[in-house]
C-alpha cells in the first residue's frame, strides 16, 4: 500500500488523513510531541477518532523520505514558516497538494494602503517560490471537516497544471464515500476557495439578521459573480468558479453553522464584537483577512461591492443595515454579467 503524508493536525487535516487512510498508509505531521502521542496512542484527536492506518510523526526528514505525495493542510498564516522548515527535505520528486483556503501576503496588510498583485500569492505559488517542488496542486470544495470526519458522503476537486498530480490525488483520495474531480484551473480553484470565505461571512450576517432563503440565494449568486470578477482580474478563467471549489463550496459554507466564517458573520449580526468572536472561535477565519486583501487590491478595477460593504462593517464600524442599504441601492447589471464582462 502506498504511503502518503498530511502536514497539519487541524480539523481538516485530521479528517483528510482519515479519508486518505481508506486507500493508503498515512503519516501525519504534528508539530507538538503531545499531539503525536494523542494520535498514536489514544487514537483520537480533537474529537476525531484516528484511522488505524494513520501514524503521527514530528520529523520532516522521515515524512519526506517515506512519502512522495504530501498534503499540507496548514493555516495560511503559518504556511510560509512551515515551508521554510520543510523545504530542505523536499526535492522535485515530491508532489504537494495543499488544502489551505487562504492567501499569503508578502507584506503586513495592516501597514499598507494598497497591494500589488506580486505581493499576493496563492499557496501553490508560495510552494513554488519556497521549495524545489514543481508538481503542485490543491484540493478544494465543500469539505466541512466535521462532516468529513463523520464519514458523510462528499466530494472535492484536485486542481493542478499537471495531470499527473490530479491522477495521483484522485488515486489517493477517491473512495466510495468521497468523489474526487480533477481540474487544470488551479489558480481559479485556489481563488474560489479563498474568496468564498467572505461571502460566507455575509451569509452568516443575513441569517443572523433573520433573512430567509431568497436573500441568501441572491447573496450567493451575486457573491459568485464578484468572485469571478476578482478571479478574471487575476488571470483565472470563470470555469473553476462554476465547480465544486466555487459554487459547491459556497453552497456549503453559506448554509452551515459549521463554517467558521459563517459563524463570524452570524455572531456579528447578533451584536457580538469581532475581537470577542475571533477569540471564541479559537481558529482562523480567513474571510476577515480576505475582506481586507480584496479592498487593498481595489486598484485592479474589479467590481467588489460586497467586499466593500463588508470592509466598512468589519473595519470601519458601519452598522449592518448601512451595509445592506449600500448594497441594495447599487445599480443593477445584467444577470450573468460575469460571463460577458471582465468586470462590471
Amino acid at each position, binding site marked *: 500500500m502506498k504511503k502518503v503524508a498530511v502536514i497539519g493536525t487541524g480539523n481538516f487535516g485530521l479528517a483528510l488523513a482519515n479519508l486518505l487512510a481508506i486507500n493508503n498508509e498515512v503519516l501525519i505531521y504534528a508539530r507538538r510531541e503531545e499531539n503525536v502521542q494523542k494520535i498514536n496512542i489514544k487514537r483520537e484527536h480533537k474529537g476525531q477518532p484516528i484511522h488505524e492506518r494513520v501514524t503521527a510523526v514530528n520529523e520532516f526528514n522521515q515524512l519526506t523520505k517515506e512519502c512522495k505525495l504530501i498534503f499540507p493542510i496548514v493555516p495560511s498564516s503559518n504556511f510560509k514558516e512551515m515551508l521554510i522548515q520543510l523545504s530542505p527535505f523536499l526535492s*522535485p520528486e515530491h508532489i504537494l497538494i495543499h488544502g489551505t483556503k487562504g492567501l499569503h501576503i508578502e507584506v503586513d496588510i495592516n501597514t499598507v494602503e494598497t497591494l500589488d498583485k506580486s505581493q499576493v500569492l496563492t499557496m501553490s505559488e508560495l510552494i513554488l517560490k519556497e521549495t*524545489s517542488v514543481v508538481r503542485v496542486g490543491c484540493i478544494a470544495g465543500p469539505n466541512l471537516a466535521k462532516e468529513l470526519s463523520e464519514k458523510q458522503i462528499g466530494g472535492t476537486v484536485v486542481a493542478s497544471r499537471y*495531470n499527473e498530480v490530479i491522477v495521483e490525488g484522485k488515486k489517493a483520495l477517491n473512495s466510495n464515500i468521497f468523489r474526487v474531480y480533477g481540474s487544470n484551473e488551479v489558480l481559479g480553484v485556489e481563488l474560489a476557495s479563498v474568496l468564498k470565505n467572505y461571502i460566507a461571512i455575509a451569509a452568516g450576517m443575513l441569517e443572523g439578521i433573520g433573512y430567509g432563503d431568497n436573500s441568501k440565494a441572491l447573496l450567493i449568486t451575486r457573491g459568485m459573480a464578484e468572485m469571478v470578477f476578482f478571479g478574471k482580474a487575476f488571470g483565472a478563467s470563470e470555469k473553476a468558479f462554476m465547480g465544486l471549489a466555487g459554487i459547491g463550496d459556497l453552497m456549503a459554507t453559506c448554509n452551515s453553522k459549521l463554517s467558521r466564517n459563517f459563524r463570524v458573520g452570524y455572531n456579528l449580526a447578533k451584536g457580538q464584537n469581532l475581537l470577542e468572536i475571533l477569540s471564541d472561535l479559537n481558529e482562523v477565519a480567513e474571510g476577515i483577512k480576505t475582506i481586507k486583501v480584496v479592498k487593498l487590491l481595489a486598484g485592479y478595477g474589479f467590481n467588489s461591492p460586497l467586499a466593500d460593504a463588508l470592509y466598512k462593517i468589519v473595519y470601519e464600524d458601519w452598522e449592518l443595515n448601512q451595509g445592506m442599504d449600500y448594497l441594495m441601492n447599487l445599480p443593477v447589471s445584467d444577470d450573468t454579467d460575469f460571463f460577458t464582462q471582465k468586470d462590471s
Partner: protein
Amino acid sequence: MPTRKTIKKPLPSVVKEMDEWPIYKAYENPDLFLQKVKDLVKKNATWILKDDDTLRNEIKNIVYQEKMRLSKTPWKSDDPKEKIFWSDIKKQVRSSKAIGTEEGTKEVDERILNQILDFYGTEMIADFKISSFKFAQKALPYIYSRLINSFPQIVYKLFSSVDKLYDRMKIMGDVDHIRKLQEIGTVVVVPTHYSNLDSPTIGLSLNNLGLSAFTYGAGVNLFTIKSLSRFMHNLGAYKVDRRRKHRLYLETLKSYSTIALTENVNSLFYPGGSRSQSGKLENKLKLGLLGTVIDAQRMNLEEGNGKKIFIIPVTLNYHYVLEAKKLIEHYLKDKGKENYLEDENTTSFGLIKRAYKVITSNPGMTISFAPAIDVFGNKVDENGKSISSTGQKVEVADYFKLNGKLVRDVQRDSQYTQILGDRILQEYKENTVVLSSNLVAFVAFQIIRKRFSQFTVFEILSLPKDETTIQTEEFILVLAKIKEVLLGLEKENKIILSSDINLGMQELMKVGIKKVGSSHPKYVLKRNKSGEISTQSMKLLYYYHNKLTSYGLEQYI
C-alpha cells in the same frame, strides 16, 4: 556567481581532435542516426498508429498536403524527385486494398509510413565533414579580405584585419563555465532572433568560444545553390521545411532534434521562431523544438548515462539591422507570421551578400551569453550541478520520477517546457545589452510619444518631420533620467549596459545617434548644428526603440 568576460580572439577548441566531436560521431553513420529517429517517431506518434483507419487516413492526408505544397507554394529548392516520390506513394495507397477489408492492409500502410519517414529523414539529415569545417575556419578571413576589395577604400581600411572584426563583434558571457559545461554534457544555444545575419554571427561566436560544432535547423529556402548547400549540410545544418505543418513531419523534426541531443551533439535553435518583426525582445516562445531538450534529458537518464543538457540563452544586440525596414513594415501591417514565400528570396548567396554588407558597415554588435541553466530552468554550478531557485542542489532525474521511477508523461513535460520557456525569456531580459543606439532611439521616440500622448502609435508614426524634432536640452534631460534607471536595473542584474552607456551625456548622445541604424538609406536620428534632433524614418526609430520596451522605462519619461 558567473564571471562575465569579453573575448576578443578565438579560443582553442575544448576538444581538440575533431573526430572526437559528438557531431562527427553522430553523423558518421547516417543510417544508424536515421533509424534512431524513425524508431523514436514511431514510439511517440501513437496517434498515427492508433488503428488501421487512422494510419490510412493520416497517410492520405499527408500525401494530399505534400502535393498541394508542391503545386501551390513551389520553391526553387524543391527536389524535382519529390513529385515522383509522392505520386508513387499515392499509387501505392490506391493500389492497396480498402481499409480493414483485406489482410495485409496494415502491413502495406506501415511500409508506406516507413518510406515517408525515410524520405523525410534523408532530406533532413545533416553531415559533419572535418575538411569543410576546417576550411570554414581558415577561409573566413580570406573571404573577407577578398570581398572587401569590392567595398569602398574607407571600409577596407576599417576592416583590414580579422582582429578588427572581433573589435566590432563583442562576445561576452561566462566563457570558462560554458567551455567547462561542454566537457560535462551537451550544450544547447537558444539565441534571440532579429536578423538573417544572426546565424553567421552566432556560428562565428560559438567557434570563437572553442565549442565543438553545433547542429541546427536551417530553412530549405537557404539550400538553393548546390555548392553552398553542400557546404552548409557538411557543417551540421539539417533541413527544415516550414511549409510542412502536418504532425508527422513535425514529429520527425522533433525526433531528429531529440536524437541529436541524446547523441550529445551541441544544438542551436531560435525558440522565438521567426525574426522579431517589431524589434522588441521576444516575449513569447515557440515551444515545439524546445521541448525536445526535456525529452532528450529524460532519455539520457533512462539510458543510464545521465548526460546533462545545458541551455544557454544568448542575446544578439545590433546597432544596425539590415532588414529592419522590411520587418517593421510587416509588423505594422499586422501580417503576423513571416511570409515564407518572400523568404524564398533569401538565398544562401543573398544571405552572404547581406552578411558582408552588415559586417563591413556595421558599427558593432554584442553577443551576450547568459549563464547556463538546466532543462528545467535551474541555474547550474561550475560542475554542472543544478541549483534550484531556493539554493538547493537538485537532481534532474527527480523531475521525471513518479513513485520512484522515471516516467514519460507528455502533458507534464509540456508544462516543464513552458517553465523552461519562461526562464529563457527572463534570461533574455536580464542579458540584453543596452547599446547607445537603442538608448537614444528609445529616448527620442518616447519624447515624441509623450508629446502626442493622445495619439495611437500609428498616428505618431505618420507625424510630419517638424512635429518630431527634439531640442538637445530636452533630449539630454530625458536621457539622463533613463540612464539613471538603467544603472539601477544593472545593479540588480536585470540588464547589461554596454561600455558606451558610461560616457558623459553629450558624448553618449552623439555616439548613439551616430550608430543607430547607421547604414539605412534614411537616417534614423540626426542632430543638426543648431542642436535639433530629427529622424527621416519614424518607423525605424520605433523599431530600434522597441528593444527597450520590456523594462517599464516609459514611466520615467
